[in-house]
């Protein structure tokens, strides 16, 4: 089994931080706001490994720090401390030691990100096809007709009508925008895909189709994925292993069926019991 990502002690504090930040927050204190300095502990001591072709779920309610962890790994935010090593084609990258250009390079070529809000993942001023072209241009493909045929293939793959590839994303439905986002994320054949609440807010039938697509991509391309969601159904369907986060901490982790059928922590037991 090949390891793709190794994350150790990842922490992110919003605010100036103080020596009590970690000691006075977390589950025991029922808060992620430091009572001494008022800083927000968005993530603390998050550690995990991810293997090739694996889907890891990160579950938790709003504000639990699940998106923060992923945003740090995709370089949308800088972590306060911790490290992450990305293994790719025989090379090792110490993610938070790279300079900005190197980080952009990895994010553009080897990583893919699909956000809950398509406005974050897509440029709404250019066409669906243009969005994909933009990402391809940032990597190795430079020839216009190559780019166009590649974009068409990707849209076909994610079941977006290719006749509409020159339309602006705003003309598309929410589900279609997510498909364009996924096509864009897949454009460079990334080895690691981050999915942040990608089906939240979509119709059930659209959710199902998007989830099927994600599973298909994982099976065919052996892409490793981190799926952030508050939806137990999404976790059950996609993730082999799951981390449960609360107040910025990973409070429990395990095989997904074990987390759902034999949760150990009081919080996870409540969460599972309250699922529909």
């Amino acid at each position: 089994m090949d390891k793709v990502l190794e994350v150790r002690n990842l922490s992110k504090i919003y605010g100036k931080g103080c020596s009590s930040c970690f000691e006075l927050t977390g589950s025991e204190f029922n808060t992620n706001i430091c009572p001494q300095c008022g800083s927000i502990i968005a993530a603390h001591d998050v550690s995990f490994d991810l293997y090739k072709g694996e889907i890891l779920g990160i579950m938790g309610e709003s504000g639990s720090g699940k998106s923060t962890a992923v945003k740090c790994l995709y370089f949308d935010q800088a972590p306060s401390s911790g490290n992450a090593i990305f293994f790719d084609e025989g090379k090792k990258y110490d993610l938070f030691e790279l300079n900005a250009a190197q980080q952009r390079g990895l994010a553009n070529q080897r990583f893919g990100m699909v956000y809950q809000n398509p406005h974050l993942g897509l440029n709404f001023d250019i066409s669906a096809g243009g969005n994909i072209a933009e990402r391809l241009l940032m990597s190795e493909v430079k020839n216009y007709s190559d780019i166009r045929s590649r974009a068409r293939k990707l849209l076909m793959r994610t079941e977006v009508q290719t006749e509409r590839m020159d339309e602006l994303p705003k003309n598309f439905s929410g589900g279609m925008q997510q498909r364009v986002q996924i096509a864009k994320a897949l454009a460079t054949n990334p080895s690691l895909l981050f999915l942040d609440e990608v089906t939240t807010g979509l119709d059930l039938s659209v959710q199902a189709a998007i989830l099927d697509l994600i599973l298909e991509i994982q099976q065919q391309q052996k892409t490793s994925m981190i799926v952030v969601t508050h939806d137990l159904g999404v976790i059950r369907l996609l993730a082999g292993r799951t981390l449960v986060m609360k107040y910025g901490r990973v409070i429990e982790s395990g095989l997904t069926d074990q987390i759902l059928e034999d949760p150990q922590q009081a919080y996870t037991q409540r969460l599972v019991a309250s699922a529909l």
Partner: protein
Amino acid sequence: MNINEKPILRVEGYSKYFELHEQNKIIPSSHDVNLDVYPGQLTALTGPTGAGKSTVLKGIYRTYLPSSGRLLFRTKEDVEIDLAQADEHLILELRKNEIGFVTQFLHALPRQSTEDIIAQPLIQRDMDRTQARNLACEMLSAMNLPEELWGISPATFSGGEKQRVNLARGLVSRSRLLLLDEPTASLDPNTTEKIITLIESLKDDGIAMLAIFHHPELVDRMADNVVQLEPAIRIEKTLKEIA
């Protein structure tokens, strides 16, 4: 049976209790279970409801985290692994390649055809899709499932049909160790006979099974070993009392 054959699974002092934080209670389930499972043999778990039979199977599959005891599994490479302690990635690998589980109920994606559901475990082992589908169809026909059902989703199937799909998926991958939880509970006598023949042939191929059967006569017919479980003492203790 070859007297020198080593067990594929040894369960030593397995116990499982559930800590329910909200109710502040400890619920005992399996208590001090000891058993061996050998290649080519079927070990049956018997005992009254509440004796923790399913809990033993779920502990071995790691759907439940064991509270104590060792679950020693011997891999293809003849390495002994304690399933109670093993790394999650290793458990996932073993589930994919060596340990199969057939439960009473079918859990499958509602949008997949029956054929695809059965082929799935084979495709996950990187088998060619066409070959996987062919094997899936062979298995469905061995299960007596009408051919016109193969191409549609089992969502609308009867209980017995769903159970056949479930069994077919569990048996098609020919895992070295099979955990069976009442796999024939809702089947008609005819189909049950077919399943018995199939299970016998899997045994002949060296596949080891640990099974729970609803009907005692199935235990009599198929089991090489029987392990009788007694209910754990049903005293629900509060968390404080334990500590």
